[in-house]
């Protein structure tokens, strides 16, 4: 894309392919490039290098500024529910989040509401140990909503600043599992009006267009307040979050960039868009 001498159709096609390659999606890519064409005409742009800059700016506008904050300073405990489909990185991200909040001076407690998957509780406990935070759990097969309820009680009793509730991975198309999620959400809200204060949807950067379906259905079910995009340390760009933001207005709050306790960063739209074009 650099080193181009003239603005021609092949330059637009090249830009479109960069977007598609980054999982922005073909419809979104076509729309963005179409809008770029109009901008180029309107502003009488004649410098090929300017096109990439204009396109990046368009995407930055969609993603929004300063979306990275998490609402943990208003209520006590601030209750965060972490949701998403299977294997995207929820449990690992909770470990990182716990560490992140502890580092900022807050007390944190975790709720092991994945009572279904083999060794899910043990996995969360291992992360609790690494981050130095307690974990509330029941025995295997227990009602996830009951664990969530008990975690909230424990958080209050121990005057914790933040409660993070881990939930089992579930495909958004499974009605009974989405009902189970709604129940957890309801139980938290009934016990503490306003809870959960954040419902974070974890999306895997390697996921393609299905991420939009995931976001839509999780939003319909429990109202997603933010996205955490994981596995950005791979080669996938996670461009599908552009559609998630544009169509569902869900801000991207943080990114996961590895398997370690510290591999969590606030989302930075400028960096994200630059990476999309690398």
């Amino acid at each position: 894309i650099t080193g181009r001498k003239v603005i021609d159709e092949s330059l637009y096609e090249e830009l479109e392919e960069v977007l598609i390659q980054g999982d922005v999606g073909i419809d979104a890519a076509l729309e963005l490039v179409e809008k770029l064409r109009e901008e180029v005409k309107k502003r009488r742009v004649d410098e090929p290098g300017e096109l990439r800059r204009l396109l990046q700016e368009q995407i930055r506008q969609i993603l929004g500024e300063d979306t990275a904050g998490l609402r943990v300073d208003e209520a006590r405990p601030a209750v965060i529910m972490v949701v998403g489909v299977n294997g995207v990185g929820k449990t690992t991200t909770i470990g990182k989040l716990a560490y992140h909040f502890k580092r900022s001076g807050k007390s944190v407690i975790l709720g092991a509401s994945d009572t279904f998957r083999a060794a899910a509780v043990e996995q969360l406990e291992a992360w609790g140990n690494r981050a130095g935070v307690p974990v509330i759990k029941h025995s295997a097969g227990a009602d996830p909503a009951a664990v969530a309820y008990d975690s909230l009680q424990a958080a209050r009793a121990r005057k914790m600043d933040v409660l993070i509730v881990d939930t089992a991975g579930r495909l958004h198309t499974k009605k009974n599992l989405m009902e189970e999620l709604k129940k957890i959400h309801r139980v938290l809200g009934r016990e503490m009006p306003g809870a959960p204060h954040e419902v974070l949807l974890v999306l895997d950067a390697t996921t393609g267009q299905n991420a939009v379906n995931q976001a839509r259905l999780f939003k319909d079910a429990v109202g997603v307040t933010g996205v955490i995009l994981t596995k950005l340390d791979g080669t996938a760009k996670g461009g599908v979050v552009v559609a998630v933001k544009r169509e569902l207005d869900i801000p991207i709050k943080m990114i996961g960039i590895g398997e370690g306790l510290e591999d969590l960063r606030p989302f930075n739209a400028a960096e994200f868009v630059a990476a999309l074009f690398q």
Partner: protein
Amino acid sequence: GLAEKLQETFKKLRGKGRLTEEDVDQALKEVRRALIGADVNFMVVKDFIARIRERAVGSDVLQSLTPAQQVIKIVRDELAALMGGSQSKIATASTPPTVVMLVGLHGAGKTTSAAKLANLLRRQGRRPMLVAADVYRPAAIKQLQVLGEQLSLPVFSMGESVAPPDIARAAVEKARREGHDMVIIDTAGRLHIDDELMNELEEIASAVRPNEILLVVDAMTGQDAVNVASAFNERLALTGVILTKLDGDTRGGAALSVKALTGCPVKFAGMGEKLDALEAFHPERMADRILG
């Protein structure tokens, strides 16, 4: 869906008289949009379109009263042919045990698929042993052990402080001694760009010479599928793919991307979280699913 789009496209085009090759190229743009929309990699789509173009601009289509249907049929048949042509079977070693190794990105479904595969093979009369070679992920060994318990199948483990190639080697020796004719090795999730961890996979493979190395791929994987598939294939002699989480609504274009890049057949489809949710892969069903 694509069928309706093509009907629309051809209706507009034929309004002006006979169909031309340029008209078909217009229609093929819709095919491209559908395939990329289904997460097939855009380079794979380019090759695919080039492949079908000759048939698509043949007289069968240009002179047809139902050109949209003709094009759909060409696309569907070619998709199914590209993804098909193999059996959902595990190759058997000439001297037991047969060794199967599962590899892939984080969270793809390796551990669950290892247990499902063991379950399936036991149903087919084999005596499988599961091997816990993920020494990195917290409670990964425990996860496989719990699944083994649920299935009443043995899980070989040496804890987290022994190197995976040594674990694999010891497991195969034990399997040989104890009459397990199937050894299924679960490995840790890893990035294809992590040199050290990719080396580890090569070391495990050279230690136990697997009869099958299966790449486990999440069906919702997007454009990146080609990078992952080619990197794993360059390092290892992949023999097949397990495509997981097909019980969702993802179109699953990654299936075509992976087949195109590795030449490896998708051997099994993960269709749920339960341990009996592993099915044979059906290329025609996958083709229909990708086309939406």
